[in-house]
């Protein structure tokens, strides 16, 4: 039977395309797969225009690092062999179970960094990094009435230093190109995001665990991926989520510890 009517032919073309699309999606890699149907609650809300933020000039003079019992200055080795100096103040009691030390490269210091391959303790501070202030986590109480609270780069640095769990909401490929040291890839656009969120929920199933702070970031500016991830976490009872609004570009500007590759 020959199909002659253009409308019927158009329907066949669309149906064929849909079948190929579904099959291709089924065989796609984890980072290129989409979940059907998608869930984007703010899909029809037009975001307000974000004013252009002029980044502060990078500081060239090294900062003086105040000695602290829980402070360790470490050299972070990424998976590609790049060495990124960083100043991190880490408290072993504040470390999350979800940010276990890397198994591939063992840490050699007693104060464990979240998945940071600490190779050689050194006293040389990072040239552009400012020493993060010691943070009292009691100042970051749960906020069950709202999905997230936006925080500044300074606060993000302090929370990072306190060993708070950092989640990177950008695409995995972008995460691998460079991310905040110790952060985990939780791309909201990839099909396995719900699995990752559920796994985090299993790891932090106790209410007290769920009330521990979590910081989420993406690319800053108009990027909303971190807000979307925060809403997802809030939806499953994570009541203490913070969005680092200026995100990774700001972190780089501040000279924060950066790591490349797929590991935290």
């Amino acid at each position, binding site marked *: 039977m020959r199909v002659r009517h253009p409308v019927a032919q158009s329907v066949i*073309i669309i149906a064929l395309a*849909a079948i190929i699309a579904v099959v291709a999606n089924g065989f796609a890699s984890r980072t290129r*797969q*989409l979940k059907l149907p998608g869930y984007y609650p*703010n899909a*029809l809300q037009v975001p307000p225009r974000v004013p252009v933020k002029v980044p502060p000039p990078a500081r060239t003079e090294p900062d003086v690092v105040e000695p602290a019992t829980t402070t360790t200055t470490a050299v972070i080795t990424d998976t590609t062999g790049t060495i990124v100096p960083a100043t991190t103040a880490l408290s072993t009691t504040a470390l999350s179970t979800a940010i276990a030390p890397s198994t591939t490269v063992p840490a050699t210091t007693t104060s464990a960094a979240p998945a940071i391959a600490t190779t050689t303790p050194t006293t040389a501070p990072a040239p552009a990094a400012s020493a993060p202030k010691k943070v009292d986590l009691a100042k970051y109480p749960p906020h069950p009435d709202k999905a997230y609270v936006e925080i500044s780069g300074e606060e993000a640095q302090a929370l990072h230093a306190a060993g708070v769990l950092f989640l990177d909401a950008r695409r995995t490929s972008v995460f691998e190109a460079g991310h905040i040291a110790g952060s985990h890839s939780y791309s909201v*656009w990839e*099909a396995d995001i719900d699995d990752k969120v559920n796994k985090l929920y299993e790891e932090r199933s106790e209410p007290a665990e769920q009330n521990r702070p979590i910081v989420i970031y993406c690319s800053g500016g108009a990027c909303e991926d971190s807000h979307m991830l925060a809403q997802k976490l809030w939806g499953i009872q994570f009541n203490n989520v913070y969005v680092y609004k200026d995100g990774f570009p700001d972190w780089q500007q501040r000279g924060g510890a950066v790591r490349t590759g797929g590991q935290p």
Partner: protein
Amino acid sequence: MTFKEALTHPWLTVRVQIALGAIFIVAALPKIADPPSFAHMIYNYRILRGDLINVSSLVMPWVEIVCGLLLILGVWVKPARWLIAAMLVVFIIAISINLARGNAIDCGCFDVSAAGKTYEERIQDMWFVIIRDLGMLLMCAQLAFAERVRRTASVAVE
């Protein structure tokens, strides 16, 4: 040769058809290669319900590539042409709506990676995309017009 004859000449029609098909194949490839990024682009338009975004970002590139191939192969040209014209109209409307409400976006037409442009650059690009899509719509019109003239001529001969 009159303007109408030149406009509907098979030499031009074949080239327009192949060019249009090639454009849509080239446009579809990056979207097929990275559906999540394309889904993000569609999300940025803020005109599609959340549950339809992933479906659209998966199916639309394959419709583009199938239509492009059909145009190049000269098979089922009419439905392929109409589908492409329909998609172009949808793109123009979508961009226009966002221009009207000042939502500067990357169109995601040939590249699904965020370009890191300023607000003004994005708005300027959106105007360019509308003009470009109108140009492609004219190519569709040329194909339709040429086919109509050819049919009329063949009916007259019979």
